[in-house]
């Protein structure tokens, strides 16, 4: 934790940007981990919710509204849409559900790209301002990083509470054995919808932070690749582990940049091979690997 607070002080602006990006992606990954790792629901649409949050923030703040309103709007939208997205999950499972969420994600991308009257389409929205909090302007890279870190802390605490509560237990039951859970009185339908709603809302929150971070957004950033990337983060970090998203996002965001210093051309190839090898030897991700090693 201390490392996170101290980290940005030695770095150049690009390094601070990467750290902030890691924070933002972690929030979205936490949401996906909640859906997938805890409640056992696959969603390939998390990237779309990041996009919804980002556009909500961009549109509101460039028209002069404060960022906290964007948070409210993004959370409300993501909760509602996420809840609706949960309905297919009541009918189908696993790869079918993955395809439905995948379709949804692509539809959102298409709408972002085509509805130029609202989103300015492929031209994107630029000049997204950073927030001012009670007079403190979170404009400089380091200041904004701390703002993001603060949000991440809040999100982490809330998620920790959720996971340790009876709801968390119900989610685990939903993941491991929905039929048995049902017969014990667990309203699997409601919990499934809740998992989708909350997980997607975290995606929306992540988007609201993403927009002022990069200050220029356009639809391609939120296409299927982002959703797949987030899925990769959750799996590589360790699905179902609380710290999994933190680790996974670090791997996905920071590792390729790090490796770039080693070998300019091949860093992506090495990253790809590393991911494949990890999945072959330890599908429960890096934290799963650590768990296995520590148990001995």
């Amino acid at each position, binding site marked *: 934790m201390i490392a996170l607070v101290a980290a940005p002080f030695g770095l150049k602006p690009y390094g601070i940007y990467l750290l902030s990006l890691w924070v933002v992606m972690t929030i979205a990954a936490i949401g996906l981990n909640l859906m997938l790792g805890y409640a056992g629901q696959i969603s390939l649409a998390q990237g779309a919710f990041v996009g919804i949050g980002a556009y909500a923030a961009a549109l509101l703040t460039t028209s002069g509204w404060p960022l906290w309103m964007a948070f409210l709007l993004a959370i409300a939208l993501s909760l509602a849409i996420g809840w609706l997205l949960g309905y297919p999950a009541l009918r189908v499972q696993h790869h079918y559900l993955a395809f439905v969420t995948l379709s949804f994600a692509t539809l959102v991308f298409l709408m972002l790209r085509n509805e130029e009257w609202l989103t300015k389409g492929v031209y994107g929205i630029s000049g997204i301002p950073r927030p001012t909090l009670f007079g403190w302007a979170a404009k400089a890279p380091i200041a904004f990083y701390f703002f993001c870190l603060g949000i991440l802390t809040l999100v982490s605490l809330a998620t920790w509470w*959720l996971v*340790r*509560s*009876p*709801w968390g*237990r*119900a989610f*685990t*039951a939903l993941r*491991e*054995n929905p*039929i*048995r*859970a*049902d*017969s*014990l*009185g*667990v*309203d*699997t339908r*409601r919990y499934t919808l809740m998992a989708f709603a909350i997980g997607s809302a975290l995606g929306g929150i992540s988007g609201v932070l993403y927009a002022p971070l990069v200050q220029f957004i356009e639809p391609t950033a939120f296409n299927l690749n982002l959703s797949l990337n987030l899925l990769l983060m959750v799996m590589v970090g360790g699905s179902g582990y609380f710290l999994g998203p933190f680790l996974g996002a670090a791997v996905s965001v920071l590792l390729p940049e790090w490796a770039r210093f080693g070998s300019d051309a091949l860093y992506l190839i090495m990253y790809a091979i590393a991911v494949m090898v990890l999945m072959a030897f330890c599908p429960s991700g890096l934290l799963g690997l650590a768990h296995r090693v520590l148990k001995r």
Partner: protein
Amino acid sequence: MNPVLEVRDLAKAFGGIRAVNGVSFDVREGEILGLIGPNGSGKSTLFNCILGQLAPSAGEVRIDGRGITGMRPCQLNRLGVGRTFQLLQVFPQLTVRENLILAGQEHQKSMWGRLIGRRDAGLGEAADRMIEFFRLSALAQEKAGSLSYGQQKLLDVAMAFMAGPRLVLLDEPAGGVNPTMLAGLRERLREINAMQRATFVVIEHNMEFVMSLCTRVLVLAEGRIISEGTPEEVRADPKVIEAYLGG
């Protein structure tokens, strides 16, 4: 007094196969009713129809006079009906204690109340008592997946009782349990039956278990009831002997 469970003309067909073919019976409060019959006679299907996992093709089910045909399993559980499954179903990643808390938590307060309330939903002591009662104390903090089959079976049965149900349907509770544990299981079931005034319906293949535990026995063959009575009466009934040995 109303019987706890009433089943009327229940039928379930899968395509052309009539798994359950017009079954009717009552279960009175406090009874331990045994349901036996050769393989394929429709016992599990009957359970699944009563308990909402399957929708019956015909017939009616009432609990305490209230129609429950086609209700979802979680609604039934809220009405005070519990069950165990033939295929063992505990939650392997949760500890024994957590499994038990889960089994009862949905009856405590409301969904939102549970979110902001205590971590164990107020069931910590009840879970501990259940663990004691079923002699699982040494395993309380173990992940359920690491228990032996027999121990998981005990946990399974314990879970069915956490919510203090009025009616419990047990699907082959003795299956795969070794003989030493079997006697213990039977005693536990008898004690709970007396303590909680709970009514049981038990599917079993283990004749000795059924005969020594149940107060009344129904015999199912090819989807129909062919005999009914006390364990001794049923055991002597020639129709029953033929169903098991003949054909």
